[in-house]
């Protein structure tokens, strides 16, 4: 252990305890808390007319029949809307994603793209009107695969001249990145063993249970109010201001409880349409997506393919790695560059002892649904390739894969030049790994899966083969020097505190974790902290719920605000008690003098400061931006059984042990890890997005798109290997994304162990596996 991390792993009063979720009682009681649960008077129901074609220009739109339907109030087309090019991606500003999107355009680029907005008094009338709007299209050749996107014959998907930030629009390349440290090709040639493989991770749907929904209305002062199930209320406000050319001061975005996001609500999907209706009609409006719309017309995960080369010496020392990728961003370039970069920057530093490393990739446009942010944000696609090739390398060398991973991976106190070279959309920051319990994760994982005692091969009944696999992973905690969070705390005269945070709890439990941090600093129980989050009128700024940032970034902001308030409380007490500050200390909801033994309760302090003595409000705002992005680590182990006659894959057991620093709320941290892991399992085994030959997504519901159920796995064990991150709030790093990174490679490696067959395209399908088994038998 380096001295850096040794710092006080200490006992806390509130932190590291399983406090009930602050919103938990409302959730288990089924209280109306989600966007669609609030009824409104006089509200218009909004529906979108969508393109049945993957690529076409719109020749004409005839809404006359639709407008005749009783109750239909408005049909808006691109002619009625400002022609402002923007990106729906909710990211720091200026955004690294290209501006290539209009609220409505005269060209459609994927099946399901909106072409007109319908507003009616009832949902029924709106639905009927959608059918009645006549759109005449001129069909264009559609690009339906990454392979086709860059062919010279491919049509250009984004010829519009207003677009900006596209890397090479003519060749359908939304973004490109390359970097090299050392002379990769030369070293690869010089290695005892060099192998080259291609891995392909297909797309995935977020499948959050609450569909995208928003409501809008004008407040009595004619300000535009949007209530939305969003992960990024402040970005939403900024983007809406730009699109509709209204000042930020005239917009308020409110985030109520959110029914899951996973990145799928880190972009504007509904807000611009209700806003358009409310601005045009001056009436409240509501838009809730159907499941089909959620699936095919919001965002999906970037499909990525990597060609990887790796070289090592005989003893297993990895000397050089080269990764060459293509990523499919679909019709729009949301998060295109950044997800590509993350797939390298949050995987390659794991093997920081290489002599040379190269990473490059193109992100291409296709006429498929636009890809966007999704838990892991490129890292799982990259790790599938990287971890599996290390596994394959070990096999080639006749070494144990885990040993090779252990001997080459990054450790506490070490660094990687990649941290500086690859940020998100720009340069990163130099950093050393101040806390890393990767080895502890591996050791504990081995114990839990029974790694040393494992036996593989055919089981006694001779139809089933068993195998084990492992993978190691890393992620980040917020985007260094970009993600900023702020918190305001004010004190009330009963000794309670309002904690106002821009941080966006989308179900993760961040409101609770942040309340715990505040309570810890202020020396009160959590019930004294009243949390209000994500209302752009009432809470300070925060970039939003993404990039595993909230606990680390917003948590540090809360800590900073609470520390200021704590000083003010001491100051107030000092004035009232007439005792010098150094004599005073906080005990539970009280200030106590070490010298005189005098004690005054928070409630007394605040009551006096409000009403009778040196009157003022105790309160402060703190903010934080990470100078670094501390890395959580994880080891995952999978045990699989394969039915060699049907190819059926049975995940008997999966173990993930993660180092997230101090778990502020251990149950919630584990919940994030388990949930992420389950999404990874789903992606590895069941979640298969399919398209028709014309580019229409076929798997738009849960009847065809199989999200894992509670019977689709055997045993799932998640644990935390605690460390202390000195730059984190009470030692915390992050846990929100990392769980999803490693199930795919761990399962791929286990399948190989069981069957001797390497599947390099995820998800892994029984049918494919069976035919591989049969072709080998021939």
């Amino acid at each position: 252990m380096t001295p850096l991390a040794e710092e006080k792993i200490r006992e806390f009063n509130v932190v590291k305890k399983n406090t009930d979720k602050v919103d938990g009682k409302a959730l288990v009681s089924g209280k109306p808390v989600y966007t669609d649960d609030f009824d409104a008077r006089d509200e218009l129901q909004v529906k979108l007319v969508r393109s049945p074609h993957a690529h076409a220009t719109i020749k004409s739109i005839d809404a006359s029949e639709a407008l005749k339907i009783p109750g239909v109030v408005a049909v808006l087309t691109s002619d009625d809307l400002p022609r402002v090019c923007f990106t729906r991606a909710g990211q720091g500003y200026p955004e690294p994603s290209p501006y290539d999107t209009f609220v409505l355009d005269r060209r459609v680029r994927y099946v399901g793209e909106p072409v007109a907005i319908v507003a009616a008094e009832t949902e029924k009338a709106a639905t009927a009107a959608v059918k009645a709007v006549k759109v005449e299209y001129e069909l264009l050749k559609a690009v339906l695969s990454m392979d086709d996107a860059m062919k010279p014959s491919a049509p250009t998907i984004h010829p519009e001249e207003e677009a900006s930030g596209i890397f090479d629009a003519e060749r359908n390349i939304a973004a490109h990145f390359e970097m090299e440290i050392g002379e990769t090709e030369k070293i690869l040639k010089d290695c005892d063993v060099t192998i080259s493989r291609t891995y392909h991770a297909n797309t995935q749907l977020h499948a959050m249970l609450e569909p995208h929904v928003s409501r809008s209305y004008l407040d009595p002062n004619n300000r535009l109010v949007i209530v939305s199930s969003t992960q990024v209320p402040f970005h939403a406000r900024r983007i809406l201001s730009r699109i509709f050319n209204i000042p930020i001061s005239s917009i308020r975005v409110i985030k109520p409880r959110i029914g899951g996001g996973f990145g799928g609500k880190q972009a504007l999907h509904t807000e611009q349409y209700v806003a358009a209706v409310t601005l045009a009609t001056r009436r409240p409006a509501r838009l809730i997506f159907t499941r089909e719309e959620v699936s095919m017309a919001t965002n999906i995960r970037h499909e990525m393919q990597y060609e990887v080369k790796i070289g090592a010496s005989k003893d297993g020392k990895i000397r050089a790695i080269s990764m060459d990728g293509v990523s499919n961003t679909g019709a729009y370039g949301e998060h295109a560059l950044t997800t590509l970069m993350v797939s390298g920057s949050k995987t390659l530093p794991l093997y920081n002892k290489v002599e040379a490393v190269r990473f490059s990739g193109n992100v291409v446009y296709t006429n498929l649904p636009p890809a966007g942010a999704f838990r892991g944000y490129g890292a799982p696609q990259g790790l599938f390739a990287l971890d599996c090739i290390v596994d394959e390398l070990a096999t080639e060398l006749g070494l144990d894969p885990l040993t090779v991973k252990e001997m080459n991976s990054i450790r506490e106190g070490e660094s990687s030049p990649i941290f500086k070279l690859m940020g998100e959309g720009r340069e990163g920051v130099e950093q050393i790994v101040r806390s890393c319990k990767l080895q502890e994760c591996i050791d504990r994982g081995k114990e839990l899966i029974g790694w040393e005692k494992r036996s593989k091969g055919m089981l006694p009944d001779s139809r089933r083969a068993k195998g084990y696999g492992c993978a190691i992973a890393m992620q980040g905690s917020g985007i260094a020097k970009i993600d900023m969070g702020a918190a305001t705390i004010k004190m009330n005269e009963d000794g309670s505190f309002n904690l106002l945070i821009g941080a966006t709890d989308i179900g993760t439990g961040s409101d609770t974790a942040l309340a715990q941090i505040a309570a810890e600093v202020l020396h009160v129980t959590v019930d004294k902290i009243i949390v209000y989050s994500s209302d752009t009128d009432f809470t300070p700024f925060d970039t939003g719920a993404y990039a595993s940032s909230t606990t680390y970034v917003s948590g540090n902001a809360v800590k900073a605000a609470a520390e200021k308030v704590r000083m003010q409380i001491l100051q107030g007490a000092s004035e009232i008690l007439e005792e010098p500050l150094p004599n005073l200390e906080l005990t539970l909801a009280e200030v106590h003098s070490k010298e005189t033994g005098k004690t005054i309760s928070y409630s007394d302090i605040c009551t006096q400061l409000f009403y009778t003595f040196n009157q003022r409000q105790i309160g402060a705002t703190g903010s934080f931006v990470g100078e670094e992005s501390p890395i959580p680590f994880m080891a995952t182990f999978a045990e699989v059984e394969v039915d060699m006659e049907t190819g059926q894959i049975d995940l008997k057991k999966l173990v993930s042990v993660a180092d997230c620093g101090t778990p502020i709320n251990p149950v919630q941290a584990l919940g994030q890890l388990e949930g992420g892991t389950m999404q990874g399992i789903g992606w590895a085994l069941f979640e298969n997005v399919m398209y028709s030959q014309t580019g229409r997504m076929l798997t738009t519901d849960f009847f065809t798109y199989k999200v894992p159920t509670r019977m689709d796995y055997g045993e799932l064990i998640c644990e935390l290997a605690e460390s202390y991150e000195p730059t984190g709030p009470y030692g915390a790093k992050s846990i929100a994304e990392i769980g999803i990174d490693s199930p795919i490679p761990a399962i791929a490696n286990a399948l190989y162990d069981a069957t001797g067959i390497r599947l390099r395209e995820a998800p892994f399908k029984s049918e494919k596996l069976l035919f591989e088994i049969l072709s080998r038998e021939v």
Partner: protein
Amino acid sequence: MKITINVNGKTHVVKIESAEMLLDTLRRLGYKSVHRSCDSASCSSCTVLLDGNPVLSCCVFSATADGRFVETVEGLGSGEELHPIQKAFLEEGASQCGYCIPSLIMTTKALLAVEPDPTESEIREMLVGNICRCTGYEAQTRAVKKASRYLRGDEE
């Protein structure tokens, strides 16, 4: 048409459209715990108990519920006091976003009515339809077990 339904002990006489779904009627009546999600009868977020049996309210025509008894999570607990199942779910951290939780609690209630002490595999089998995208299901299994202990009086 008009129907009479009893929701959580309260009788409602409501005007409905002929092809209206129970999910919509209940939400219109203010039972917002009944959530719409999948549009394909495959996530169970809209589960309610109809004459005691868990069903998907998105597939039940309101007209067929005429004269019948519906239970939703709003009917559990009393005032500030949570029902033991709700308490167990809260304590075990079984909910993240919470969207699937009301339906899961109602299905659990029905399960514990027929099987007061379910094994882990019975819990998984009977609740398999209740899709949760956030949690990974483990905490929910622990919550159902805890709820069963509460209801049997094995744990306070």
